[in-house]
């Protein structure tokens, strides 16, 4: 068993953050919010970067106790083929989306690295920015993914409490706590430009997790100092697996986390997904959050599927329940009412270097994924 890395004991900056996070903090939430809002405005202006998730596959070999896609859940499994991916991309582009996050479950024979790589290559043909939230990979796999046009990866530690982590991840490769910890570093070594980190709030002591998340960001930022970084605040919502959060985080505490992270990490992108309600998202938009998902579907094929008839015999469940179900149009209108400009394109693929332009190998990858029909 490998040792827990030294940076998890690095206390630089944690006292200040800890003082803001504690529910018994002497800092009033209102005062922190005022400071966070001012810092966000200075650094990011009145903008919000928008993205949407695209679930490529819901096959999974992991046994995460809290997840609707865990391998013991009885949800129908499938993966998108090339023509289906293109159909989803077209539907998303119609909404104005050009920044997407491709998702799969843990590595399986049905949806392995090769499949994901082909999916990335197809998406990179259509979208300005392609990120991946899938399974931990090797440096050479990340390099191959970057060559196909992937610029960012999201990999949540879920919880930094090793004991809780090992209890919650019942089987599968994800059980390896240290390997998970080291994954973002491998991605950056492989040439991925940005990494997204996060803890799943509700799994373990949230303040302890937040401090370790901060340590992780600072460690990566010091070592891979050219990397872009984002922090997300996913909060446990009722799952199809019926998992009830052991450490529930209420709205007040979540808001406190967000504004405290903005103050502690002035340059880091802070992300909030459609797991949260419209009211909460609108409220946090000006206070510290700089990147949001929009009009998300958490089912495989959710964007282009027939909205009327449901062909599946057993209704497919998403990975988690969406709370903010506004359309892109409605959501952007709400942002504009707050004097915040929605940003659909914040990245030009030409910056990806040679692979961002015409790359025959990438084209070949994209063309090798079979069609469904």
């Amino acid at each position, binding site marked *: 068993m490998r040792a827990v890395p030294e940076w998890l004991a690095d206390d*630089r*900056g944690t*006292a*200040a953050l800890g*003082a*803001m996070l504690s529910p018994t903090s*002497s*800092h*009033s*939430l*209102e*005062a*922190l*919010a*005022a*400071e966070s*809002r001012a810092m966000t405005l200075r650094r990011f202006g009145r903008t919000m970067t928008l993205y949407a998730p695209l679930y490529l596959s819901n096959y999974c070999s992991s046994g995460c106790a809290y997840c609707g896609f865990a391998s013991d859940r009885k949800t129908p499994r499938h993966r998108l083929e090339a023509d289906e991916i293109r159909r989803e991309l077209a539907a998303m582009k119609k909404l104005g989306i050009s920044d997407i996050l491709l998702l799969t479950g843990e590595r399986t024979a049905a949806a392995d690295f090769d499949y994901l790589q082909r999916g990335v290559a197809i998406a990179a043909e259509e979208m300005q920015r392609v990120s991946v939230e899938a399974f931990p990979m090797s440096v050479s796999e990340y390099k191959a993914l970057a060559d196909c046009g992937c610029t960012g990866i999201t990999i949540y530690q879920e919880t930094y409490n090793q004991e809780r982590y090992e209890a919650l991840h019942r089987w599968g490769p994800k059980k390896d706590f240290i390997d998970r910890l080291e994954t973002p570093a491998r991605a950056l070594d492989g040439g991925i430009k940005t990494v997204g980190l996060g803890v799943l709030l509700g799994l373990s002591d949230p303040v302890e997790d937040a401090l370790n998340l901060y340590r992780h960001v*600072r460690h990566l*930022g*010091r*070592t891979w*100092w050219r990397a872009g970084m984002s922090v997300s605040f996913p909060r446990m919502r009722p799952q199809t697996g019926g998992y009830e959060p052991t450490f529930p985080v209420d*709205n*007040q505490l979540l*808001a406190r986390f967000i504004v405290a992270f903005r103050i502690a990490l002035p340059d880091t992108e802070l992300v909030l997904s459609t797991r949260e*309600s419209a*009211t*909460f998202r*609108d*409220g946090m938009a*000006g*206070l510290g959050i700089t990147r949001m998902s929009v009009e998300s579907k958490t089912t495989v094929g959710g964007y282009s599927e027939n909205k009327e008839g449901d062909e599946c015999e057993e209704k497919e469940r998403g990975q988690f329940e969406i709370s903010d179900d506004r359309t892109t149009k409605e959501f952007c209108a709400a942002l504009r009412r707050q004097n915040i400009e929605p940003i659909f394109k914040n990245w030009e693929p030409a910056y990806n270097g040679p692979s961002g332009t015409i790359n025959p190998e990438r084209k070949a990858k994209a063309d090798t994924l079979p069609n469904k029909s």
Partner: protein
Amino acid sequence: MDVLQLGSYTFSSRLILGTGKFSNSKVMLDAVRASGAQLVTVALRRFNREQLEDDLFGPLSAMEGITLMPNTSGASTAAEAVRAAHIARELSGSPFIKVEIHPNPQHLMPDPIETYEASRILAKEGFLVMPYIAADPVLAKRLEEVGCVSVMPLGSAIGSGQGLATSEMLSIIIRESGIPVIVDAGLRSPSEAAHAMEMGCEAVLVNSAIAVAGDPQEMAEAFAEAVAAGRKAFRAGLMQKSGSAVATSPLTSFLGTL
């Protein structure tokens, strides 16, 4: 034990002394002794048979517990600095080299490009490289990457006594650095040295402020105490500032509606 770690060397004193601008070497040596400094900078000069008392190597190496850190001042290119480093190591036997390259003799601002190149070469050759740089966070990371054991950003222009004019940039460098950050140049008063240490600098290098003080020996002691106090405060953890003004229209009232 809280020590300053530079390469494989450790020092209990976090005050590094420069030896220039003193009225004579006796005053300088008394100040070094009073400061408790263990790392002392010296510069290469041409031998002058008329001024044999200029030679500091003898008296400094006779003092116990002093490690010399020669600088490359006078060099205006990387090649000159590398050459100066080789000569200096020959003389001092010390692996430390303060890379200091200022092409403009008026303001003495360091040349980032030549400094980077010289540091890269010297670190590869096994020197413990301590580059004197402008307070530039990106340059600091690039120098860390090529193997410097520390970076020494300026607080303000050499000899200016403007204190920590670059504190905004210094705090970024300190936050991002994986190697000790040592403020070099610009400090005028012990309180500024203490402030630098409270910010998380691992050491400070002081020369002019001590050399041209009314009583250099007394000032050396004052700096030593300030540096120790600042370090202690940093380790103890400063109290957090309390939140500032509260907006008149509450920003978080929406939470109550959820």
